[in-house]
């Protein structure tokens, strides 16, 4: 196993906190405070500065030319069939993003968010967990749902908020969810899903289920108070939860230098007593292996793990954002050209003889056609019946809501032509 656990390197780093060459201090005893572990006393004033700590390394299997790095190997569990399948899904997500991004530009759907550049992170992690594991997503994780079998029709139905949308047309586009696929419905407030994932995981633990929660979030969301709450709760209750940070460099326009000063998200794990792994997010093999290993560790040790994937948001934040207003076009191009998860995997597959340029062109065409077909089908469907607006507020429908529903229906009967049931 090429992967070494960061807990070891953290322990190594910890020794560096003890006085170094600069100030040779000696341990002069130990304090047994209830608020800490056994704390050594030293005879020299010591400032612990994170700037003097090593940067937590990112694990990598595949280099930017699609070759296995020196000393590395294809992770256990990955074979030609699975690798090709992962690549096909990456292409499918890519084509879906292209088509629906354009559909929003044409005003056919109200909103969209792409996952360009983060496909490796999504499919690598999705393949590294079990289908029964509960996914708590932020919003840029459609690939995880796709890997679990959510169909293009289902994606399209949600985006068009039509009568077949599982969410009954109530939430903005890309707020997917599927009970069948153990994927909790996405909500817009950032980081709220983190302590929820810990709570669900605690439930699995008490039920003695072989099951974890995996909770995705961006590096911006990690600044929310709920991040702190979640990691601390998960650690103190020993919850089987995998916190999965997608560090793509930006939260809308905010670069990470305005988001935090420490060593990314990974460096925070130690403070909560949570093992961390940082990984090259554009390397699907490394992400897959790291996720699998983290799951193993969670189940055997009965504690949470934090993964930080280092990647780059190639697309705009959303269809409401023009990212060239706060970053250079050349920067985006650089990442697309030199460090794209799809290209890296494709080069590997070509080299192995598992793939060809012809198959690549044909796959892209096929997937684009599939997405366009789903789009056309979804667009032709009507919105859910107006009455359903009043359902599911509560399990039952209280009288005041029944009355308001009745009021609306009477109003509509009076002015049938005034309210269109199409468009956004």
């Amino acid at each position, binding site marked *: 196993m090429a992967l070494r656990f960061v807990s070891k390197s953290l322990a190594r780093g910890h020794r560096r906190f003890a006085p170094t060459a600069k100030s040779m201090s000696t341990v002069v005893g130990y304090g047994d405070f209830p608020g800490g572990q056994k704390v050594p006393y030293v005879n020299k004033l010591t400032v612990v500065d994170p700037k003097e700590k090593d940067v937590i390394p990112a694990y990598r299997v595949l280099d930017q030319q699609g070759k296995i790095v020196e000393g590395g190997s294809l992770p256990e569990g990955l074979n030609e069939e699975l690798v090709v399948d992962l690549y096909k899904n990456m292409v499918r997500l890519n084509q879906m993003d292209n088509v629906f991004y354009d559909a929003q530009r044409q005003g056919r759907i109200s909103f969209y968010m792409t996952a360009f550049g983060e496909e490796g992170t999504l499919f690598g992690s999705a393949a590294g967990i079990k289908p029964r594991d*509960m996914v*708590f997503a932020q919003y840029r994780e459609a690939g995880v749902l796709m890997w679990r079998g959510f169909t293009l029709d289902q994606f399209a139905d949600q985006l068009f908020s039509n009568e077949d949308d599982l969410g009954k047309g109530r939430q903005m586009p890309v707020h997917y969810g599927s009970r069948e696929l153990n994927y909790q419905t996405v*909500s817009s407030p950032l980081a709220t899903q983190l302590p929820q994932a810990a*709570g669900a995981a605690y439930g699995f633990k*008490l039920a003695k289920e072989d099951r974890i929660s995996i909770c995705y979030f961006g590096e911006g969301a990690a600044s929310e108070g709920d991040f*702190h*709450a979640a990691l601390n709760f998960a650690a103190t209750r020993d919850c089987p939860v995998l916190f999965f940070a997608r560090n793509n460099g930006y939260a809308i326009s905010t670069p990470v230098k305005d988001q935090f000063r420490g060593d990314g998200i990974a460096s925070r794990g130690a403070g909560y007593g949570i093992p961390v792994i940082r990984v090259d997010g554009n390397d699907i093999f490394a992400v897959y292996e790291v996720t699998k290993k983290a799951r193993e560790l969670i189940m055997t040790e009965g504690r949470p793990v934090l993964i930080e994937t280092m990647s780059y948001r190639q697309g705009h934040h959303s269809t409401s954002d023009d990212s060239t207003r706060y970053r250079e076009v050349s920067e985006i191009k650089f990442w697309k050209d030199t460090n794209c998860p799809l290209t890296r995997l494709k080069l590997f597959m070509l080299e192995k003889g598992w793939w060809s340029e012809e198959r690549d062109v044909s796959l892209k065409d096929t997937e684009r056609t599939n997405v366009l077909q789903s789009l056309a089908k979804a667009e032709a469907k009507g919105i859910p019946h107006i009455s359903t607006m009043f359902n599911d507020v*509560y*399990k039952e429908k*209280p009288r005041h809501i029944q009355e308001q529903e009745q009021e609306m229906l009477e109003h509509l009967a009076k002015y049938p032509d005034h309210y269109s049931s199409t468009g956004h």
Partner: protein
Amino acid sequence: MFAKTTKLQRLATAGRARRAFSAAPLVTERMNMFTALNDAMRVAMETDPTAAIFGEDVAFGGVFRCTVDLKEKFGEDRVFNSPLCEQGIAGFAIGYASVGRTAIAEIQFADYIFPAFDQIVNEAAKFRYRSGNQWDCGKLTFRAPYGAVGHGAHYHSQSPEAYFAHTPGLKVVIPRNPAQAKGLLLASIRDPNPVVFFEPKALYRASVGEVPVGDFEVPLGQADIVRAGTDVTLVGWGAQMRVLEETADMAEEAGVSCEVIDLQTILPWDVDTIEQSVRKTGRLIVSHEAPKTGGFAAEIASTIQERCFLSLEAPIQRICGYDTPFPLAHEKFYLPDALKNFEAIKKVVNY
């Protein structure tokens, strides 16, 4: 323990209690409010192996003794301290409930529920609706002590029910005595919707009464007519019910008959019972400790004015806390006490 056939039996025989009492006398036990709440949680934990209780300092019994002995009975896995973080308590509870398990989460004081406001309002309340009923966190109850306590000042006295009453998807429940506390809490824990359950902390020890033994529920969404009357309807909830009963006594001496109603559930509230009462009396006073502006009395007054316009003999009165933060030295002056309510009765009767 002794048998008693009072209003509690009426509750039971009216089909309101969970246990089938038929015509047999209801067995009750004398308890104060914190003991009754403890008893409710004990029953909930015994009857539902997925139920867990957590919050700050609940493991040793809670700062108000509501969870005493529960850890010993049900184990550290099911009754445990959380880190000191209200948004975490709320988020953790939602997640736990989202996988079909019963979460009984405590917020130490209602004054400290605001860090959890986002989780409660944006998440818990909308969980079922936003997922098209694919997911829910209905097996979730937040308990929090609320209200004046004599010396609680800004942050140990608040009554935040109106903030939550503005949130579709939540239920908000407040009991007035030990029996109601037990029955309403058990109903809240078992209700398939997220419930915010506020406990009048001034009554934890002060309110003592007969409480049905064993499994017993008081249904949510129903007001309780505490005292029948003909001239004025007095509506309140929680600790304010003591004030309104005192007011009704004063009024009775003055020859005015008050109908006293405990709303019990703030959301969704029992419009029918209040409406019927006001049609009969023609006068309505709503009283709560929380500040007047934006308080829940405004919702009741406006709705009753819409429904009972032709029956009303006087303007509806709201006797509430003033629109200031809850003060320390001036608590007595701040509170909507019996005398202030009595003045309102004189006003509506002489209108």
